[in-house]
């Protein structure tokens, strides 16, 4: 199988002076399912490639089952990819750290989860949650430096007064406060990349923006790069520099945030954008681009996964998954409607 590698050069990253911190190439994850002979496979993620620079936010947008959370979990090394490369600070970590992530990888790449209620231990105080990574990663010289550092981190994420918050237990905090503690805990080990998997979707609407603004502030002040996983394309536009759209485990389109939303090329991206509620247009007047639901990921047929729903489908779409085509500066798409049309990858 020839592969679609989207290099940092192809997705014109060269304009930025900041170094690429994390790059993944052809990241693929399959899960065996089914009977005794395990003959079937779920194609959760197929040949996904991208790079993130220092202080840059890449949003990965898609519906449930698109593979976006799988991508984050693979990079966090909570599970091993079926194939592909994860390159961090120039090293292919799947080669150099075969038996699991090293301490230095885990301090460089941190993750924030969707559920701020499930990601903390109810029997431990806030201070404990932030001290643990400080101790494990030897981030402070003396024991006496621990608590001041905890307070400093809590103040950084806007939890005031820090000394009070440090003594609280998870159940005494609101969802937004807990998510801020989760961010402080990630910050404790001085990460370069934070994988944020739907970090605001379980929070009350009035406090979501506050958490996104905090993450944006840390990007600007500390230079943290984010992989921002979300189903909410409007929040991606707000927070991210670039957006990549996934569908059924495949990369479909990517561009700078404003370009992707202003000039979507892929029929699926157009569908996704048309589905976002818009109070200025009545519901019945919204254009219907396509109907139906995402396909099964178990042993999918060859070709583009969107072919079954695509209003502009051609014969070739059902046979061949198209390659990456650059259609504008910093804007690529995988669709037979663009470019020569048949220069794709046989699956």
């Amino acid at each position: 199988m020839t592969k679609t590698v989207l290099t940092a050069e192809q997705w014109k990253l060269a304009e930025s002076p900041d170094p690429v911190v994390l790059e993944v190439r052809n990241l693929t994850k399959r899960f065996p399912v089914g009977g005794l002979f395990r003959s079937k496979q779920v194609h959760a993620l197929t040949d996904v490639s991208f790079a993130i620079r220092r202080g840059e936010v890449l949003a990965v947008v898609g519906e449930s089952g698109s593979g976006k959370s799988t991508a984050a979990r693979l990079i966090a090394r909570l599970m091993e990819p079926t194939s592909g490369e994860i390159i961090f600070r120039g090293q292919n970590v799947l080669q150099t750290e075969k038996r699991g992530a090293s301490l230095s990888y885990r301090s460089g790449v941190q993750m924030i989860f969707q559920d701020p209620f499930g990601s903390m231990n109810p029997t431990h105080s806030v201070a404990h949650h932030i001290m643990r990574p400080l101790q494990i990663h030897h981030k402070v010289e003396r024991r006496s430096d621990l608590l001041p550092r905890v307070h400093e981190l809590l103040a950084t994420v806007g939890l005031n007064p820090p000394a009070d918050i440090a003594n609280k237990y998870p159940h005494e905090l609101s969802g937004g406060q807990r998510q801020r503690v989760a961010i402080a805990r990630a910050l404790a080990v001085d990460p370069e990349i934070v994988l944020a998997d739907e970090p605001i979707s379980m929070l009350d609407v009035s406090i979501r923006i506050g958490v996104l603004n905090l993450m944006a502030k840390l990007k600007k002040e500390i230079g943290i790069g984010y992989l921002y996983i979300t189903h909410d394309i409007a929040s991606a536009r707000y927070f991210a520099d670039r957006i990549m759209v996934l569908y059924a485990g495949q990369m479909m389109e990517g561009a700078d945030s404003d370009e992707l939303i202003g000039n979507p090329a892929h029929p699926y991206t157009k569908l996704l954008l048309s589905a976002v509620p818009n109070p200025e247009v009545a519901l019945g007047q919204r254009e219907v681009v396509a109907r139906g639901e995402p396909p099964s990921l178990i042993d999918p047929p060859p070709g583009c996964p969107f072919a079954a729903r695509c209003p502009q489908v051609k014969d070739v779409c059902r046979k061949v998954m198209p390659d990456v085509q650059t259609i504008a500066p910093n804007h690529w798409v995988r669709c037979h409607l663009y470019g020569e049309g048949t220069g794709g990858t046989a699956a």
Partner: protein
Amino acid sequence: MASAPVPTSLSPQSSASSAAEPLLDVQNLSVEYQTLRGPVQAVSNVSFSIGQGEVFGLAGESGSGKSTIAHAIMRILHSPAVITGGNVLFDGDDVLEMDMEGLEAFRWRDISMVFQSAMNALNPVLTVGEQIIDVIQRHQPKTTKQQAKDRAAELLDIVGIDGKRVDDYPHQLSGGMRQRVVIAVALALKPQLMIMDEPTTALDVVVQKDIMQQIEYLKKELDFSILFITHDLSLMVEFSDRIGVMYAGEIVEMTAAHELFNKPMHPYTQGLMASFPALVGPKETLTGIPGSPPNMLEPPSGCRFHPRCPKAIAQCSLQQPTLREVEPGHFVACHLY
């Protein structure tokens, strides 16, 4: 958009009320949760009405009391929740006064409800047809099994599922299709009012749009009213005729949907509007609302929003504002007006 004409047999039962009277009239409703740590006033003195064919939206964050109101209207609140005051008039009858027999006839026939994640509440060992037949035969015992099954297939058709799938089990359908089945069940007895509590929150946006468009189409064809509950203000403005915004158990602002969108008056509503990034237009730095929703065991004095309010004045912590009509049809509970 589904284009099949809806059979007239599915239109709601004719209403005896005159056009001037609202279909549902909620008056000064209060609900309390009696917890071990003391009473929690989940809903305080809430009044609103819904007219024939109207979509009324209740917006608010988790814990604001919007689902509690829905459960109170259906009389399905469980201990420790207690209705401590008010009236719920449906077509002139007080739902809160009904006995069990009256309630059994009232639920599903007059008002039906679609719950959040209801798609996961379907019985996995019964076909979707059997679950619709169940509702029809329970309320209309004279219906034969075959008649009920034909109706079930017809109902599936009008919610956009092939009627042939009447013998499918829930696991054979996707999440979006299961939610459509739940809507078919809610339509089965031609109710005049449907309560939809976050009907699409657990679904992807594309599926959400399909289902909301289907509901809008059905509403036009069948002319029922909807009490629509969601935290998603954009969807609510798009779908509702009028909206009540709830905060900490109270309605703080109530007006026509587009008036609310174009001219929010309560600082809380203004804050909510500033909490949603837009997909179009200039990129602005949003501020959201500082702080968190209050602990309802010890709600703030005066206006419950005053600790988070950027425009609070001295009066706000002392005196509770009442919901007043400050412009025609625009009600606000705020000392600034």
